[in-house]
């Protein structure tokens, strides 16, 4: 025991929190890359994913591992539907309008959550297999802490393959590079945007499930803070850039945990950490750590 094992414990905590931020941040970055829109409702989609999983496990006879696939898929459909209803009609409008619509959608989901799921916190049913503590050389670590980064990395490999190697992925990249030209090249924009929203929401829901397993308290407003912080992760890494979103996620997750671990006096300021990082990044490198700076054309 001693300082080293304590440090390792913080490190694993930070990595697992960072992986969760990274998973949610990908959804932000993908949508922003194509539509130039901050999907404010993304954090609430994440919340919806957790609740759908909760109800799937508690109220249906479906085995938990299957719920872990069905619930994100359903969440993905909700994300797709949201785009159709709240964003698609405004695609040609000024950006401020669609941003307001996104905030409205976020608020709608939160309050629907309160109406449908009740304001009282619920306990996430964590499957036994994911919820036991192992001791590695004196450091006690919950299995889920290991599972989270592994799942995140697997999903990332899958996503990277999808984006670089498949035709749909290529269409996505084309759209994010030049929206108008891409649409002239015969790319079905509506289809690609729907797929983007589906995938982003799916990943957010997977992140949500792991979040629930790690911090098993469910509340309708639970998506707000992780949502904001993941968005910050996306901006810090360079918005529109998937590798950047992942790097930003890890940076924020690790930073947050380490801040509390190394400077316990600042524990109360934990939630402000991400925002301070955001503002520093915006001031000194607005395009993010990995983003390309764009010059404005007249």
């Amino acid at each position, binding site marked *: 025991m001693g300082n080293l094992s304590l440090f390792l414990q913080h490190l694993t905590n930070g990595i697992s929190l960072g992986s969760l931020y990274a998973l949610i941040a990908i959804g932000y970055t993908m949508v922003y890359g194509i539509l130039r829109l901050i999907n404010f409702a993304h954090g609430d989609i994440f919340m919806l994913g957790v609740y759908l999983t909760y109800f799937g496990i508690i109220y249906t006879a479906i085995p938990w591992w299957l719920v872990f696939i069905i619930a994100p898929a359903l969440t993905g459909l909700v994300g797709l539907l949201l785009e159709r209803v*709240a964003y698609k009609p*405004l695609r040609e409008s000024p950006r401020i309008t669609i941003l307001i619509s996104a905030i409205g*959608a976020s*608020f709608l989901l939160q309050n629907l959550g309160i*109406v449908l799921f009740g304001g009282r916190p619920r306990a996430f049913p964590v499957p036994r297999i994911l919820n036991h503590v192992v001791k590695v050389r004196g450091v006690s670590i919950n299995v889920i802490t290991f599972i989270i980064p592994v799942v995140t990395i697997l999903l990332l490999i899958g996503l990277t393959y999808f984006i670089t190697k498949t035709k749909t992925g290529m269409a996505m990249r084309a759209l994010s590079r030049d929206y108008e030209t891409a649409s002239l090249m015969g790319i079905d924009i509506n289809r690609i945007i729907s797929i983007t929203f589906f995938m982003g929401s799916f990943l957010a829901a997977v992140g949500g499930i792991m979040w629930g397993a790690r911090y098993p308290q469910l509340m309708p407003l639970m998506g707000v803070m992780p949502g904001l912080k993941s968005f910050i992760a996306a901006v810090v890494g360079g918005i529109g850039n998937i590798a950047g979103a992942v790097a930003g996620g890890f940076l924020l997750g690790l930073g947050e945990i380490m801040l509390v671990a190394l400077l316990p006096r600042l524990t*109360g*300021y934990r939630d402000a950490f991400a*925002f301070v990082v*955001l503002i520093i990044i*915006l001031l000194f490198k607005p395009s993010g750590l990995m983003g390309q700076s764009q010059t404005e054309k007249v």
Partner: protein
Amino acid sequence: MNEQRRTRLALLALVGTVLALFLANKYLDDYKIRIINLSGIYVTLGLSMNLINGFTGLFSLGHAGFMAVGAYTVGLLTMPIPMKEMNFFFQPIVPWLANVEMGFLPALLVAGLISAFLGVLIGAPVLRLRDDYLAIATLGFAEIIRVVFTNTQSLTNGALGLKGIPNYTNTWWSWGVAFVTIWFVSFLIRGSYGKAFMAIREDEIAAEAMGINLFRHKVLSFAFASFFAGVAGGLLASLLGTIDPNMFRITLTFNILLIVVLGGLGRITGTVVAAVVVTVMMEALRFLDESINLGFIQIKGIPGMRMVIFSIILILVVVLRREGLLTRLKGREASYAEN
């Protein structure tokens, strides 16, 4: 509308409101008076947000933060000294605030000035950002203010909040400030500053090319708006008597945004009407959240239903009528202004 007719209408509205407030104070119960007060405060808030978001076209979501600053300033400055000692039982208040007690008007002005100063401080670096980046940065600042207020125990009493703030706010204060705001914003908008603000909104690069100092005007608009947000926060603190940092979450900013969007971005009359309508509706729709007993049948209220309806209204208005609900369609002119 020509100048003379406009002045006459404004005077008429002023006299009408004064009369209405006089009658309301005489005949209505406390609960209704409170709604009237809230309406006045929301008029100020709506106009102040419209000044940045509607007229200058900067998408800022920091209002809750500036309101918090104003509310705490007024709370700490007007609270009687013995009350302060009772509030700060956990950790004593910082010495330079312990023995301060001032009147309401100076406290409101100080609240506005501190808020405006903070607005300049925050605005100077972040106003370089555009649209959504600015939105998220200002949101971040509001959130930082809230976190700081939760943690500075000896200055703000932390999460415990302040209790027993004297209730100075009455209908004359809330609507008086509202009228000052209406007058100031319309005065500003008709002058050269307003023209510059709107030029920035329409096209930043063109505005700069025409010799408008972008930075100066943006910071100025931001400072004015934070001033009024701070004053409104102070009015709110004095109306409620109790404040804590969690009141000033993004939800509060969202309520104001709802007013601005319903009233129409960059429209003064619309904002005023929307502020009153939304505040009254928020209260009128409260029955959705609570149980209703009709004698023979009990309808169970669903907490949160009210806000669901409000969010749906917001999305519908944005999707279907971008100019806001309360404005006439002006044909070509309106569609030109949107571009």
